[in-house]
Structures are given as structure tokens and as C-alpha cells.
């Protein structure tokens, strides 16, 4: 019994690594996803810089660039996680995968991890684009904190995407809802516009979103101000919370999808 557990953990870790690599390869061969991961952050960064410069708003350029990068990262994560389940459904693989003895969570987790990993590339390319085209100084106030905040934020976005994508297991048409959550999360997380400019009740919702803390952590670490360490901690805490909720939801959705027979529906 005790010997079986490490073996199972090893198998699961191996499965995760292989599935992540496989999904990553699939994603980089999908032009739509490459657009979302690479081109979209550049379009958003350009839009943000032209809007802020034209209006004369004096926000730090690094904060604008980071917000634009996170906007692109969220769009690609949301679509990537959801698309993966829709793709399995279209290829008629969702049903056998859910029927397999491995947990559905383990099957879907690599999708979120792979989309998030490409998000790091999107972040780097956005910073480079902003430095080259918009003369943004590439200076980080707290480089170590920044390098810690990046993976924490990326995983947080991935987990939030996976949490939302869980519904796609149950509802074949839920993919159309994915795009709906793009702009609200941009707005609620304080990307480009600070959370403090939102009405008070809405701000409470913002603080339940891990990306809000991700924005605070990255901006604080890059341009100074705020408390990036607390923000990183909050981001981690909320990511763990999303993980637990996703596990519960997926179990429930899987049961409902099996009993209503919607897994094979397209």
C-alpha cells in the first residue's frame, strides 16, 4: 500500500510531463493559438501604448506593457484550455479519456499548463516589443521578485482557465462562453485600469481573482510600489483554491456528463 503510492505519483508525474509536451507541440502547430499567444499581446500592447500616449496619461510604460501581456496571456489561456476539450470532443476522444481509470483532472491539467507555458513567451515578446517600438526602459526594480511572480501568475491564469473550462466537459456549447470571460477578467483584474477605479462592490470580486494579485505582483516587482511579496502569496493561495474547486467541479461535471450522455455530443 505504502509502496504503491510513490509509484502512482511517479506515473502521474510522468503522464503530466508527457501530456504537457504533447499539448505544447500541438499548440505551436496551431496557427490560431500561435496568433493568440504571440501576435495578440503585440496588438494589445500597441493599442495600449497608443491610447495611453495619445491621451497623455502618465502610467509607467512597464506597467502598461505588463498589463497588455497579461491580457494576451489570459485570452490565450482561456481559449487554449477550452479549445483543448472541444478538440477532444470533436475527435471523439473525450469519452474514452473520461472513461479511462486516470482522473479527468490529470487529463485536463496539461492543457492549462501548456497554454500557460506559452504565455511566458507572450510576456517576453511583449516586453521586447514595447522596449523596441515604444522606447520602454527594460529596468526591473526587484528582479528576483519579478522572476518569482512570473511563474506564479502564469500558473494562476492557467488554473482559472481550467476552472472555467471544466464546464466544457458537461456542456458541448460552453466553448462559446469562453470568449465572454475575456473582457471581464481584463477589467476586474486591473489590467491597464487600476482596480481602485471600479465601484466598491466590484472591487471585492476583483480580489477573489488570482490575476488581480498577479498584476499587482508583476507591476510591484517591475516598477516598485505596493507589496509584491504579499501579492505573490495571495496569488498562490487563490491558485490552490481554484485547484480544489476545479477538482470538485470536474468530478461533479464528469458524473453529470456520464449520466446525461453528453460526452460524445458535439
Amino acid at each position, binding site marked *: 500500500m505504502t509502496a504503491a503510492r510513490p509509484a502512482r505519483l511517479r506515473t502521474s508525474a510522468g503522464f503530466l510531463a508527457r501530456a504537457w509536451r504533447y499539448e505544447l507541440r500541438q499548440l505551436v502547430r496551431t496557427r490560431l493559438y500561435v*496568433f493568440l499567444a504571440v501576435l*495578440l499581446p503585440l*496588438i494589445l500592447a500597441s493599442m495600449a501604448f*497608443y*491610447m495611453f500616449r*495619445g491621451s497623455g*496619461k502618465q502610467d509607467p510604460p512597464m506597467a502598461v506593457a505588463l498589463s497588455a501581456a497579461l491580457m494576451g496571456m489570459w485570452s490565450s489561456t482561456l481559449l487554449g484550455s477550452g479549445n483543448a476539450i472541444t478538440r477532444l470532443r470533436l475527435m471523439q476522444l473525450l469519452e474514452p479519456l473520461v472513461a479511462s481509470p486516470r482522473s479527468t483532472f490529470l487529463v485536463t491539467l496539461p492543457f492549462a499548463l501548456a497554454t500557460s507555458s506559452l504565455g511566458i513567451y507572450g510576456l517576453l515578446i511583449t516586453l521586447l516589443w514595447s522596449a523596441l517600438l515604444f522606447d520602454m526602459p527594460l529596468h526591473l526594480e526587484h528582479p528576483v521578485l519579478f522572476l518569482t511572480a512570473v511563474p506564479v501568475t502564469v500558473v494562476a491564469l492557467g488554473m482559472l482557465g481550467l476552472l472555467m473550462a471544466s464546464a466544457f466537459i458537461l456542456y458541448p*456549447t460552453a466553448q462559446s462562453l469562453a470568449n*465572454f470571460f475575456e473582457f471581464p477578467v481584463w477589467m476586474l483584474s486591473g489590467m491597464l485600469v487600476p482596480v481602485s477605479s471600479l465601484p466598491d462592490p466590484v472591487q471585492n470580486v476583483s480580489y477573489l481573482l488570482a490575476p488581480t494579485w498577479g498584476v499587482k505582483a508583476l507591476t510591484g516587482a517591475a516598477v516598485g510600489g505596493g507589496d509584491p511579496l504579499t501579492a505573490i502569496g495571495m496569488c498562490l493561495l487563490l491558485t490552490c483554491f481554484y485547484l480544489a474547486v476545479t477538482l470538485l467541479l470536474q468530478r461533479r461535471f464528469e458524473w453529470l456528463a456520464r449520466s446525461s450522455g453528453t460526452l460524445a455530443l458535439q
Partner: protein
Amino acid sequence: MAGTLQWDARSSVTWRLFFVAGWRSYLALFRWLRPSAFIPTVIGVPVVQLIWAVHLGRYLGAYPSDYYVVGNALHACAMAGLFAPAHSIQGERYGGTLTALLATPANRAVMFGGRVLPAVLTGAFTSAVMLALGSALGWVHIAPGALPLLALTLVVTALSCSACGLVVGAIGLRTREATFLANVVLYSMMLLCGVNIPFSWLPGWLAALGHAMPMSQGIEAARRVLSGAEGVPGLLGWELLKAAVLVGLALYLLRVLERGSRANASLDDV
């Protein structure tokens, strides 16, 4: 007599091909128009985009809210306009029916033109809903007298976007990347067509590119209609001209790329 009957039958088939087949193709896009798929896509996303843009615009403080409401309301028609014609061709490919469709002797201009009409109507309807929402929230004032010209502006802009969608769909005959292209165009419009950024804030070459893209004159026309400024017919004329050029280009591409797809046996590529 027989000739007349034959002519009547051909004419009836043409009308059916344009209206009925076009509409059914559009229904199929939304899995036969399930509200759970249609409403979030066509109404939900533009609503949240509009709210986001007004929120951002107020923070920047450079223009009043109505600037962002008009820009984003008209940008809303691009989603239906670009994706519906593009997906209606891509959807045939994924459904395995593209080969059968292109094996028919049906007139291509009528067949694919029919797929644009529902997109134009839906696009104009979405923009109208967004403007009504902006008006209900007090972000934009629409004088009753401006409604007919505003409605015409919405239809012309939606037509221009749908014509661009047909070009994207035509390219989808040869490649599998119609969705990719439609996304590139959609987000580029947000940057270049005066949706949220005035042309004077863009570098000259980007502004010129924006002026040449569909929708830019339509947005400017809508802003002028609401402010009572002159020059609307000229702007709508330009937008219509762009739509006509795009339709011509789409029909040419459909013919050339259909031939190429047959020659390369790439119609069934998924």
C-alpha cells in the same frame, strides 16, 4: 412554354440557394441556433467589450464615453461579419460536405453571397443593440431624427465587414486557417480602424492602413450622424466602395482557389 417553366425553375432555385441555403448555413454555425451558443457569442461578448472600453476610456479621460460606445458598437458587427462567412466555408470542410458542395453546378456567387446576408443582418442588429445599450446607460445620446441615417450606416458597415469575411472564407477554401485570419483582422480593426484610438494618435502609415480597412469610414460616419456633422454620405460611399471591392475580390478568390483546391485535392483537409 417549356422554356419559360425552365427559366422560372432556375430563377426559383437561385432565390432558394441565396436565401434558404444561406440562412440554413448560418443556423448550422450555431448548431441550429441554440440560444446557449448564439446569445453569448453575438450579444454577450460585444456587451462586455463595450463596458470594458468605456471603463478604459473614462480612465484615460481623453474622449467622452460616446466616442468609445460608437466605436465598439460598430466593431461588434465585425464579429458576425468576419466569422460567419469564414466559418460557413470552414464548417463545410469540417463537416466533410465541402467536396459535395463544390461538386454541384450551383452558381458560386449566389451560393456564397447567400451566406453573407445573415451575417450582415446579424452584424447590424448587434451594433444596434450595443448603441441601444449605450443609450440606455446614458453613455450616448441618439436623437430620434438621426435613427434612419444611423441604421443605414450600421447596415453599410456590416456589409463591408461581411464582404471582408467572405474574402477570409475564400482563403479558407485553400487553407485551414480561416479562423486564424478572421482573428487577425478582428483585433487589427480594434487597433487601426478608429474604434478606440483616433487616427491622429497613430503613425501615418498605420493610419493609412486603418483607413483602407473595412469599417473605418463607417465608424466615422456613425460619429458624425450622432453629432449632426456633415459628410456622412461621402463616408458611406467610401465604405460601400470598399465593400464592393472586397466582394469582387472574394468572388475572384473563390473561383481561383476552388480550382486550386480541386487540383491539389485539398478540399478534404481538416
